[in-house]
């Protein structure tokens, strides 16, 4: 596997799942944290790895923090590459699981 490819732990899959659950909708780190129930210490290294691998992209919330009166949020969106890879990974898991069920 390419060194740049993120490791698909169950936590990473949860993050990808959260981002894919509403396609085209950008989510902030805090929103992803709420959906996945991941602690900040786990969440951001995952997001950072996914972003570097090009599976996820992020941008600042529109607006000036001085006018908003609070720091700007950073929104994350899954890329086509991310969606493709995540779907492939899930399919692979499902196939493995189905095989196991058939065997039993």
């Amino acid at each position, binding site marked *: 596997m390419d060194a740049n490819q993120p490791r698909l732990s169950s936590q990473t899959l949860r993050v990808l799942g959260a981002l894919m659950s509403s396609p085209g909708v950008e989510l*902030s780190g805090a929103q992803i944290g709420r959906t996945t129930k991941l602690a*900040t*210490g786990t969440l951001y290294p995952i997001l950072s790895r996914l972003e570097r691998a090009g599976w996820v992209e992020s941008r600042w919330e529109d607006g000036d923090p001085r006018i908003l009166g609070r720091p700007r949020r950073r929104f994350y969106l899954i890329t086509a590459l991310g969606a493709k890879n995540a779907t492939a990974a899930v399919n692979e898991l499902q196939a493995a699981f189905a095989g196991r069920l058939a065997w039993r």
Partner: protein
Amino acid sequence: MEVIIGVMILAVVGIFFGAVLSRQLTDEFEAWTQWIINHLVNRAVRRLAEEERSRFEEEWLAHVNEIHGKIDKIIAALGFLSNARRLSTAISVAKRFLDVGSSIFLLFLYAPMMLWTAILIKMLDRGPILTKREEKWNGNTVSAFKFRTEDFTGRCTPMGRILRNLGIDEIPSLINVLRGDMTMSMFVVSMHRHGKSSG
């Protein structure tokens, strides 16, 4: 009758002051929480590469802002601290353990010498024992602890000259290694660079 009225007045006054006091305490707690969060995020961000700091500082403060509940906010902010090391710079856990172990060992080893140095600095020119000096490393700036070798005008003191020649002034940076601001290799390089410049 008067007694009852007296008690009622006291009760009303008590409730009023109680409310004011609890309001005051809540405000105080609120201010403290924000201070703790800012402090934690700031510390976490300092562990990142310089070009990433401003992004994550704003992003993480916004993250905490989106969370309800003071305790949850602090827990989230604490999480960023453990984050920082695993992000970008990717310092391995094993290396960090080695850094912590070796810095504790060296701090114990140097403790008597550090104690004497501290006493001598205090005796000879009063002033503070430690200062912070900026160290540059891979584009990161770390303000590292050093024994003070200069007087308030910025001139090297006689005691300071000896400390610099022996490289003793660099030893307090072990505290930065222990805290994770610096790595052991940074410490060794700064000692080495020092030896070259003075010898």
